């Protein structure tokens, strides 16, 4: 790991959205000012994150110690390639989502928009906190804050359905994090006597017996249930009761990716590749993740509610990422890190589209999408691009990451993993292309007159993300070399 630079930038990147809550709440009476502040915060965050990029490129590491809260385990930020990558994705997409969210909330005249944007900002700072956290304790703290701060967002509608969704959401997330992660955390603390820092070769490497490593790994991998590994996945479809911007950012990007990110951290930084190799634990995760990939894709096929189908597809894609990392091969890790970004852009586009369709003419079900392309050409085009990306077909970003993932399987010569990828890609195609086909080539039952796109903000947002998805195919940009650096550091 490169030389360390002390800087408070990570802290500010984390705080800026937290501070933004104040003006957001104070201007609750005048929506325009309020939303202006959200934008300011979003851009400021993005700017700060971007300003750290060059340092990372030079292979440096940015550190910022906040508070020695437990001996040896302070609240500390450390920005390395991996965290940088994730932070970049999150902060970029926050801008777009804010744009989209404004359009969506106003388009639907949702209630309690102030609360919505305030907790949105809070969730974002928690996300960056996770991205930049330097040790397991900090990670855990921000992880919990994220779970709790997203509860009001998930249950935004405050009706019976929302309550049910919220219950499953918290039951799974809190249950797993308190029940599994906390004891594992303490156990690590004892084992390493008081040093929870992520180190490239694993904080615990060489300290564990096979059984301990096995138990710890399972506790941690399932404990970070935001990663959506089966059988702890069902909070994700449940949480789809949330307004679409929430589903989009939190359940395509922030929350779920936080879960995956945590698991990657555990694999690379806590348990350490060496340990996993030594006791051949990688394959265990490979099988769990592979199972999740296939099953979730199959379930997705059977869903008619668009958002639910997207949710299950998300579960599958998350499992891709975990699988890629658990191959314990350089290319695999590169691929899975890149997939964090690629899938984020692709999936958020899809969610935006789903939301836009709902805003425009209240359609939720795939069976209603016949001939939709004539009404909303932009939306459906974007949808097609997003679908391509998720299935992994050029010219969409998803292809690149999936390429690396498959390459990784070859490298680790785990051919069952290869099968998982290929089969599930086929399944993805199966559950996306019918929609596109129906939208573009089928006759609508009730031919609408002319184009009826949804709120301009929404359209703008989804066009941006779609074009990004295309762009990333031709030029993966920082995501590629960040991922590459990380896998070089680890292996």
């Amino acid at each position, binding site marked *: 790991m490169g030389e360390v630079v002390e800087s408070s930038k990570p802290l500010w990147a984390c705080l800026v959205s937290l501070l933004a809550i104040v003006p957001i709440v104070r201007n609750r009476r005048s929506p325009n000012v309020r939303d202006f502040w959200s934008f300011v915060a979003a851009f400021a965050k993005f700017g700060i994150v971007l300003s750290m990029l060059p340092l990372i490129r030079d292979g440096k590491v940015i550190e910022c110690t906040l508070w020695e*809260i437990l001996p040896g385990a302070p609240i500390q930020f450390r920005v390395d390639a991996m965290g940088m990558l994730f932070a970049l994705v999150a902060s970029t997409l926050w801008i777009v989502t804010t744009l989209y969210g404004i359009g969506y909330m106003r388009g639907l*005249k949702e209630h309690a928009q102030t609360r919505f944007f305030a907790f949105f900002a809070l969730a974002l700072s928690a996300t960056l906190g996770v991205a930049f956290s330097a040790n397991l304790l900090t990670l855990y*703290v921000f992880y*919990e804050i994220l779970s*709790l701060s997203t509860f009001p967002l998930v249950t935004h509608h*405050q*009706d019976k359905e929302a309550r049910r969704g919220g*219950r499953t959401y918290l039951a799974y997330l809190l249950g797993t994090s*308190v029940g599994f992660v*906390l004891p594992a955390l303490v156990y690590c603390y004892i084992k390493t006597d008081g040093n929870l820092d992520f180190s490239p070769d694993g904080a615990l490497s060489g300290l564990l017996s096979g059984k301990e490593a096995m138990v710890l790994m399972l506790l941690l991998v399932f404990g970070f249930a935001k990663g959506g590994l089966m059988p702890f996945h069902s909070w994700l479809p449940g949480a789809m009761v949330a307004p679409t911007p929430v589903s989009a950012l939190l359940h395509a990007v922030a929350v779920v990716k936080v879960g995956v990110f945590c698991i990657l951290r555990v694999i690379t930084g806590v348990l350490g590749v060496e340990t996993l190799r030594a006791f051949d634990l990688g394959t265990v995760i490979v099988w769990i993740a592979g199972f999740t990939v296939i099953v979730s894709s199959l379930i997705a096929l059977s869903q008619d509610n668009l958002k639910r189908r997207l949710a299950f597809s998300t579960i599958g894609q998350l499992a891709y990422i975990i699988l890629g990392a658990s191959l314990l091969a350089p290319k695999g890790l590169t691929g899975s890190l890149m997939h964090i970004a690629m899938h984020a852009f692709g999936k958020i586009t899809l969610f935006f589209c789903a939301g836009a369709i709902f805003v425009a003419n209240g359609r939720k079900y795939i069976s209603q999408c016949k001939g939709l392309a004539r009404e909303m050409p932009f939306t459906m085009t974007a949808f097609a691009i997003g679908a391509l990306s998720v299935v992994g077909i050029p010219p969409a970003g998803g292809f690149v990451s999936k390429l690396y993932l498959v390459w990784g399987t070859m490298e680790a010569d785990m051919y069952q993993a290869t099968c998982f990828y290929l089969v599930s890609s086929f399944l993805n195609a199966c559950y996306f292309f019918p929609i596109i086909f129906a939208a573009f080539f089928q006759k609508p039952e009730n031919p609408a007159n002319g184009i009826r796109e949804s709120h301009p903000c929404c359209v703008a947002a989804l066009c941006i993300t779609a074009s990004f998805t295309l762009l990333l195919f031709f030029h993966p940009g920082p995501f590629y070399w960040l991922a590459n650096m990380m896998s070089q550091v680890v292996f």
Partner: protein
Amino acid sequence: MFDHTLMLTILPCFFAALAVTACGLWKPRWSLPVALLSVGISLFGSLAVLAEVMTQGRVQYFLGNWSEPRGIGIEFNVDPISSLMLVLICVVSLLSLIYASGKITEELPGKEPLFYALFLLLMGGLLGICMTADAFNLYVMLEITSLTSYALVAMGNGRRAAFSAYNYVIMGTIGASFYLLGVGYLYIRTGSLNMADIFRIIQLESLQGSPTITVAFIMILIGMLVKMAFFPLSGWLPNAYTHAPSVTGNFVAPLMTKVSVYVMVRMIITVFGIEFTFDHLPWGQTVVWLAILAIVAGSIMALGQSDLKRMLCCLIIAEVGYMVGGAWLANIHGMTGAVFHIFSDAAMTLCLFLAAGIFHHKNGTGEIGSLEGHFRKMPITMAAFTLGAFSMIGVPPTCGFFSKFYLIRGGLESGQYGYVVALLLSSLVNAILFFRIFETAYFGNLSEGHHDAHGNDDHEVEIDEAPPTMLAPLVATAAGLVAIGLFNSEIAGFIQRSLTPLAVGGTW
């Protein structure tokens, strides 16, 4: 240097109690200022003691200047843990007194001076318990606290107050008598009453094997377990604390059980010595299992309650299980966790009880169902309540998380996995309990739905908060929760300063 800081801490309570009673006879409205003043002085004194202990390690005071031979007179001896206890007691008293000043005229009309007098005497007794190094003097102090708390509980005009107080009297007396009996057994075998002296004699004549000492320990333990409402002996607690006037409950609930736990810890570490407790006694394991039982039982009972305060009382029982179990894990981290949890649990209980009192004050009922829409109606109170709840659940960075952290660490190190599991289960149960409340407070009643509140949040329920005298202590406590959490490593380190020297038998 002024060397009467201990007296400065404890005496104001008693003098002020007299003064307040006098005020009651002549000028009742002066009683509050007098009480506040004296609590303030005590707080100052306790902080001075803390500072002294930080520099010198411990503070000793020989009453009547009878220092030689050891134990001839009564000795005060304050080590790091007890100095922290002193500060805790003073702070909690101050906050609950401020709260009481706003509520009392409505709850106990015409009895204000008596309430303040008993309040101060109770506080003084608690301080004395934490200071004294004399086993019998501790009994006297214990009785002072018991009598005053009986009276404070029985003062309520509620229909059930007196009856619950009666059971409280019976149980409390049994507990105290068992303690006294234990002291008698110690005395008949060692011939001394001074804690350090007893410890010395037990080591010197190696009495660890003698049945008398064992039975003495059992008696003292049982007495304290009754006082702290350890599960099978906890029948009196929910009624007593629920039906007591809220001004009383806010003060008694956070402190009484915790102080009894502290006495148990102190008996273990300074009188009997850890290697007697954990090596010579065969049943340390049993106590841990009992603690697990207490935790589970408390959580289950809490699930069944529909009254907020009653639910909190059941949770107290569970938390007592935490502390007893932690203390009996027989390693330093468990003990640290137990002692640390004394402080964090006192803070959480105070926070939640204050909030519950405010809800009761506003709604006139303690039913959980009556909290609908309170996130909008009284945001500040709910925010503080939420913090307290998170601390109970164990969400970082509140103090509840860290006490769980230490306790779990102790449990894992001594291989008590059952205890760890019970701990995690109970925090999950807490999560269920409190999110049930949040749902009621957040969703409101779902029948009429949310659609009346379209657009932005202008036409909402207008905010209707409690008066500042009630709100300020609540907010302060909530802040304290986070503060204890942030400074946990300092506090734990300070606690360990009085635990580490005990590592004689190599028990830890």
